[in-house]
Each structure stands twice: as C-alpha cells, then as structure tokens.
C-alpha cells in the first residue's frame, strides 16, 4: 500500500467544498483513491458523505479540485464524467420505474457498439432475484431488488471507478452478505471502489483503506487494521 508505487491517483479530491443554497456542507475534503483500491467512506448521518459523492459526479456544484485520472472534472457535465470511466450508484437508487429490468440494464451500457465486460444475461444469472423479474417493470421490484438492479446497471457501463452510496440500506441480512460479496467481486475485477457505508462489518471486510468524515471534512484516514485500534475515532466520529 505504498503510495509512491503508483504516483498517479485514480481520483483525487483537493480542498473540496460544496453548498446547498446557503448551507456550507463540505468544507475542504481531501481524499485520494489509487487504481484498484477499495475505499470506505464512513461517518455519521448528515456529515456530507453523499454530498461528496454528488460533488464528484457533478450533481452538486463542486468548489475546489476534483481530478479523475489526472484530469480536472469539476464542473463537467455528468455524462462526460461518466464517459471518462466513473460509475455512480446513488443512495436514492433512481431506477427507471416504467421500464423493465432488462431495459434498465440496457441503459447502463454507454455505447452499444462497444459492450463491456459484463453482459445483461450474466447479470441476471448472478442475481436470480433480478433474473426472475427480468421483464417486469422495475418500479414494482422490492426495495432490495432495486438496490441490486442499480448496482448492476452501473456495472454495465464498465466503469474504472465506481462510487456506491449506502448499498446495503434496507437489505435483508442474507442479501447484505451477498452484496458484500458482490462488491468484493467487483473489486477483484480491478475496478476501484469508493464505498459510502454505515455497516462497519462490511466496510472493514472489503476496504483497503478507510476514511472517516465529520462535519464536512475528512477526520481520519488509514487501513482497516489501524482503524480497528483507533477506539477514539470510532467513539468520537462514529458513535459506536
């Protein structure tokens, strides 16, 4: 995990600020992700983790620097960011309710002429729940199924870095395990992951490094092993 082994980070946030109207939500976030790395972003509710993700994707206006593969992407239209190889699974899931599961997946593909590593059928096979509902309108899926669908849809676009916001929310324990495995699987395929998560068990199991956020800035960064020893951080910033 030596940083100088690979001098160019995949994603680098430098002094990132963001606002909702007048409220200043992010006050200077610094964070970097190396290629192939899985990063967990922890923190209490409302500290601004989702906002960080949105600022990267251009859904809220980022002030400061957001560099992806060395290129400044702050202020870019989000489809261009996506085309650079960033994938995003939002907290709100945002499935397309009137379309079938299959059509949802198809929309994940950026370019029909250049399909990616994953095919729709593979996905449906990997998640039998989805496979059963492949031709149903996505709007009728159960909460958990929707979560799976969102993740699969993003993968269809072959991202190099994928930002996943609270993937296990509202999932049955068994499925939480499954999702954990899936994320590990994705990581194995060489995709970098920025995982915004509450459930420490999952986060610590998969992550290469852990960041903890508090009040709109990063208050801790380190390996899971180190983090395990930092009772103080957990007390102060994660209320466990």
């Amino acid at each position, binding site marked *: 995990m030596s940083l100088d082994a690979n001098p160019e980070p995949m994603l680098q946030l430098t002094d990132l600020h963001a606002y909702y109207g007048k409220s200043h939500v992010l006050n200077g976030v610094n964070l970097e992700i190396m290629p192939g790395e899985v990063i967990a972003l922890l923190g209490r509710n409302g500290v601004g983790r989702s906002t960080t993700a949105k600022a990267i994707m251009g859904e809220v206006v980022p002030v400061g620097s957001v560099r992806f593969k060395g290129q400044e992407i702050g202020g870019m*239209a989000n489809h261009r960011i996506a085309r650079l190889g960033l994938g995003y699974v939002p907290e709100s899931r945002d499935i397309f309710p009137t379309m079938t599961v299959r059509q949802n997946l198809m929309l994940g593909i950026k370019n029909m002429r250049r399909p990616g590593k994953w095919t729709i059928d593979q996905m449906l096979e990997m998640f039998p729940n989805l496979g059963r509902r492949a031709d149903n309108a996505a709007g009728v899926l159960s909460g958990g199924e929707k979560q799976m669908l969102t993740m699969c849809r993003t993968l269809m676009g072959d991202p190099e870095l994928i930002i996943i916001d609270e993937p296990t929310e509202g999932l049955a324990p068994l499925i939480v395990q499954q999702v954990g495995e899936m994320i590990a699987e994705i990581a194995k395929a060489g995709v970098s992951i920025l995982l915004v998560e509450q459930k420490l068990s999952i986060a610590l199991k998969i992550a290469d490094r852990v960041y903890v956020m508090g009040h709109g800035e990063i208050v801790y960064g380190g390996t899971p092993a180190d983090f395990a020893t930092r009772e103080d951080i957990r007390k102060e910033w994660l209320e466990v």
Partner: protein
Amino acid sequence: METLVFALLNGAIYGLLLFMLSSGLTLIFSMMGVLNFAHASFYMLGAYLAFTITEGTSFWIALFLAPVLVGGVGMLVERYGLRKVHAQGHVAELLFTFGLAYLIDELVKIFWGRTAVNYRVPEILDFPLFTLYGAQYPAYRIFILFVAAFMLVALWYLLKKTRAGLIIQAALSHPHMVGSLGHNVPLIFMTVFGAGCALAGLAGVIGGNYFVTDPAMAVQMGPIVFVVVVVGGLGSLEGAFIAAMLIGLLQTSAISINASLADIFGFIGLGADTELGEITIASMAPMLPFLLLVLILMIRPRGLMGDREV
C-alpha cells in the same frame, strides 16, 4: 355509394394530414413529456418558409429545406428556452410553449403580413388524377399519401429501433441518473424536439398549399392535434395514425350526413322542430373529435393504443 366513396377518400386524406401534424407531437409528447402547445405554430412556420423558398427556388427544395429550418428553430427553442424551464416541471414547460405559440404567430405576421400568402400546389402536381362521379380528384392528394407513408416508416424506425427513445424516457424520471450513466441527455432532448418540430414543418409544407397559408392556421389546427395524440394513446405511433384516420373519416363522413337528431332519435320522441331535434349530424362534425377525446379519456385513459396513461 357515391357518398361513401367520397367520404372515405376525403376522410383518408384529411386523416393523413392530421397524422403528419400530430406525429411530431407524438414524438415530443411521448419522449419528453412536453405538451407542445406551439406545435401547430411550427406547422405554420413550415408552410410560410416553404412559401418563401418556393418563391425563390422551387417547391422541391422547400420540401427538404423548410422542415430542416423549422427543426433548427425547434432546436434553438429547446436549447435556450425549454431546457431552462424543464427543471420546473411539465406545467411550466407547457406554459412556455403556450407563450411561444403567441410569439411565433406574431413573428409570422411581422414577416409575412396578416393575410394569407399565395402558397400554391406546384405545377407538376396540380392536375386532376382521375374523375369520379363527376368530381375530380387532384393528384396532390396522392402525393400527400406518399409523404405520410414515408413519415410513418421513418418515425417508426426512430421510435422502435433506436435506444434514444429509451434514454429519453428514462431521463423523464431521473435525468441526473441518466447523465451519470454516460448519456448526453441534453443533446438527445434537443434533437428530439428539433425532429418533432421538423415533422410539423414538413406537415406545413404539405398542408400549407393544400389548405390556406395564413396567420390563423396555427390556432385552427392546435387543439385537434392534441385530440389525435391523446386519443391515439401516448407514445404510440400506431395509435396516432389510427386516431388521425378515425377522426378524419369521422369528421368527413359526418358532414355528408344530412340527417338531423330528430331523424335519428325520433323514436324516443325527439321532435323535428325542437332545438335539439333540428341539429344535423353535419353541423356536429367539428365537435366530434372533442367528444371522442372526452369519451376516450373517461373510458380508456391510455388512449386507443397507448401503453401508459397520459
């Protein structure tokens, strides 16, 4: 027999024109969810541009150029107007186009005057194709038939065979998400709107000389276009086609019926000299489409062929 044949022939042509006019709206309405009130104004614009181009060059150039120009105007409107309004929801979009209709109508009056222009059917199409029961059947109507068929096929391809339709529908519910998946939503919106307007423009090129090209043509065609789109069913091209033909035939054949309500409902005691009884079917023709609209929405809100509610 004679009446029937004529009703069919004329109804079909009127229906085809209605279809041409509404196909662009179907495209815009179903893909972007925008009830484009200015649609008929783009139709008018097409007719006027075609008139000007025809004056300078020829009808055949106008046939291609005018729709392209109208489409361009549509794209500009989308880029600098509609896009801004989009975030405020459908009502705002609709009102925007509502105001736009006023604007286009007035601009047309500035450039082309308040009275009809002399936009005529081109010489080579201006001959009677055949004579039936003493009435001539102009060749231009067959031309209309061909253009309509071409539009039907082109649109069908666009809607069914391209992924653009899917992307736009998705963007209706979650535009950000669609962008995050790597699709250039604004560009697609602009293109679709432009294409829809171009179709209206094409209808204008064809309909402007079949009817009359004057500043009132937009207002007159406006509401009926909505009837076609809604009755046909949202997003359904086939539906729009069927509805257009249905309305065309309905209206035309109603005109040829001389019977009054008293003749029809006489058996339940409706007198021929009562006010209700005096009304003839022919005089009810213009309100039939709206009757159809209300009935359809009440009985089958999805329209004839629609796959979702309006």
